[in-house]
């Protein structure tokens, strides 16, 4: 766990400015301003209903799928406002991809799961696909376990393996930002450790935003941690600061288990 990203990497990938999110008349996020850096793991922690997942889904416009969704403020990806009417949400989701809490392996082979996304957006050559599968599965720390059975059904994998397959499927799209919504919530400690190991390795090439209910996980692998409460960003700081000397008493009460 490092307190800060390595020198020279403190470049914002996503800048969120005065973000407010509403679903109908209910305000879910209130005036969030936050920079997310390249090559960092930013963890979002907070109790249920604090707006963590809403915030995450705002970063690749998944909330747009809800008819009552409305937002104010800006979310700038490399300086471009992703909520500008001319911004293509499909192209956005290729750059900013999501891994969900529940691993959903498609009912096809391991190999086909990984190449599913890339083949939808064209038909790369077989050799290129083979290379992509190996690269993605290796990056997701799954290659060694499945390399001899790529053509078997993905549904035969364990829950932890399926979640890493989902990660590999996202990586095959070659995104720039990976969003993860409680990716280890249903996994055993060994599978959790493998996902964490993969994420720490991946941050060299990606910007990673992780929503987690496991504050120990946030402490273990994050560069920075943001604490959300009732739709507000209470505090954001290095993982070591948040878990040893939180500035806000609400953060201290949450990380010490007094509520949440």
């Amino acid at each position: 766990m490092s307190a800060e990203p390595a020198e020279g990497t403190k470049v914002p990938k996503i800048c969120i400015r005065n973000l407010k999110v509403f679903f109908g008349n209910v305000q879910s996020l209130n005036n969030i301003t936050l920079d997310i850096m390249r090559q960092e793991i930013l963890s979002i922690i907070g109790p249920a209903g604090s707006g963590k997942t809403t915030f995450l889904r705002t970063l690749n416009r998944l909330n747009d799928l809800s008819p009552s969704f409305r937002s104010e403020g800006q979310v700038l990806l490399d300086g471009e406002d992703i909520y500008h009417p001319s911004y293509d949400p499909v192209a956005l989701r290729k750059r900013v991809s999501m891994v969900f809490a529940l691993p959903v392996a498609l009912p096809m082979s391991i190999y086909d799961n990984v190449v599913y996304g890339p083949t939808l957006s064209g038909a790369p050559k077989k050799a290129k696909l083979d290379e992509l599968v190996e690269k993605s599965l290796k990056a997701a720390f799954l290659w060694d376990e499945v390399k001899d059975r790529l053509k078997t059904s993905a549904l035969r994998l364990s829950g932890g393996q399926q979640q890493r397959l989902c990660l590999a499927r996202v990586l095959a799209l070659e995104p720039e930002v990976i969003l993860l919504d409680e990716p280890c919530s249903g996994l055993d400690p060994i599978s959790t450790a493998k996902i964490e190991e993969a994420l720490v390795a991946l941050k060299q090439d990606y910007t990673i935003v992780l929503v987690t209910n496991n504050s120990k996980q946030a402490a273990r692998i994050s560069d920075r941690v943001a604490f959300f409460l009732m739709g507000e960003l209470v505090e954001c700081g290095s993982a070591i600061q948040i878990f040893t000397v939180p500035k806000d008493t609400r953060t201290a009460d949450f990380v010490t288990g007094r509520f949440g």
Partner: protein
Amino acid sequence: MERRLDEKLAGLKNMLSEMSELAETMISESVRALMEHDTGLLANIEHQEERLDRLQVEVDENCCRLLALYQPTAFDLRLLLGASRISTEVERLGDKAVNISQIAFALSEKQPIAPSEKFPQMARMASEMVHESIHAFLTLDVARARLIIQRDDALDDLKNQVTQELVDLMKRDSSVIDCAIQFLVVARNLERIGDHATNIAEDAIFVAEGRDVRHGSEPSPYRPSASNLDATTEQAT
């Protein structure tokens, strides 16, 4: 919300409080043994030291257990780290008192010179510093802790005065050198007690504020620099 951990931490504080009371008693009794040639106190000091040693081990075991089982963060984490460090400091206070009591025993038969009248004053000051520093830790009273750190200079001054008196005595009369050297050791032990109390006060500040003030430095608690990395929102205080 009352947590199970709160109960365990309260137990840990009680143990440290008991250690502190034992150490304070040992310090005053060891100096009384020296001043009044009362060797009857020595058995009691040894008995108290055994209890102090046992408590130190218990505190450390409890800290280790709570770290492993609860994986504490923030204040809880600082409290456990502080408690472990403080138990070591208090145990060393007991060692200093034992050192003084051993000198009291060695000199009980024959003292060619009377012990300095400043010894009881030093012992009183040292005991008060110990009492205050532990209290600052238990009540998270940073102002109190800072006063103790400042007060250490006064104890150092007293030790220097005693040292000068003893050196002058030795210059005038070489027959008192053996005894004077023992008294120098007593002064040194009392001065070291003040140093341990200062360390406890510094730990109290760390526990209360997360600020490490040891070795005269006072950096901010793990606060990132003013770079844009720490893009805390305006809502955060």
